[in-house]
């Protein structure tokens, strides 16, 4: 990409990100009552969306070719075990990522 293309890329990314954050405040300005259904969406949607993001991160993993998703599965198990044990997000993320990097660089 050229300099200007890269700059446009980052401007688009920043503007669209800001749009997602400003939208609810534009739709429901101070003093206006938020509809009940919208409140329901606000309560429930964060859960399926995070689930979707986990799957999104793993979308390019191929189970049929080497290493058959083995580093990803291994690292997620490590994260789940450490996280249910220590409940320290930073520790789980750090150890899980390092574990993945070691597996990937050794076997892939």
């Amino acid at each position, binding site marked *: 990409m050229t300099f200007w293309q*890269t700059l446009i*890329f980052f401007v*688009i990314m920043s503007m669209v*990100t800001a749009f997602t954050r400003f939208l609810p405040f534009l739709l429901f300005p101070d003093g206006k009552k938020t509809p009940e259904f919208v409140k329901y*969406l606000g309560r429930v949607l*964060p859960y399926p969306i995070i689930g979707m993001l986990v799957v999104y991160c793993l979308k390019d993993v191929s189970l049929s070719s080497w290493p058959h998703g083995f580093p990803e599965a291994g*690292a997620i198990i490590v994260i789940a075990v450490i996280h249910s044990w220590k409940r320290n997000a930073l520790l789980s993320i750090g150890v899980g990522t390092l574990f993945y990097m070691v597996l990937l*660089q050794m076997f892939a």
Partner: protein
Amino acid sequence: MFGRALKAAWPLTIPVLTGYLVLGAAYGVLMDSIGYGLGWTFLASLTTYAGSMQFVAVSLLAAGFNPVNTAVMTLMVNARHIFYGLSMLGRFEGMGRAKAYLIFGLTDETFSVLSAHEAPEGIDKRSFVLAVTLLDHFYWVSGGVIGSLLGGALEISTQGLEFVLTALFTVIFLDQWRIVANRLPALMGIFASLMALWVFGPSNFIIPTLLIILGSVAAGRKLLDRKAGELL
């Protein structure tokens, strides 16, 4: 006055400080590894200020210039912010001139600190919310700068470092899984994504997934809203 708010807010932001320094630095290193130096990392972390999207953008950058795809991807990855904003409508009411900045800086982490803590006794409510937002933003940009500077000096292979993003979402998922009374919405999200991934393939499954999720949420309110938001 604002100094006191900063002093009261910063101990509450320590988990974000550590997380943002590590993830922000990982972002700086990753950007450096595909040839984007300090200036670009600083710009992205300052103006986009959305961790997961910035990581996704690394792969988009590597794939070449495609403005429409960039906009759609950003919208999809950050769509969840809409729902965090919905929960902060009341809290940000009457915030005055700072309000636009508070909305701009409403990341997952800032949202979680703000939902977990009210302003301590004797601290102005507005200054407190602004202090948390400013501190978190500062940590994220600092992490990026540190990573970018380290990146050039690192001799070790960074292959696989992008897994921090997977790890971050997995941890958020596990935290939600542990505390909510109703796990059906989380399971539905995984199931919908896997189904759409299987049918539409890895490059086109996000929009179908969001549609399935919205449809299920609209149709299955009885099941999904049962004990919604209630913690175990």
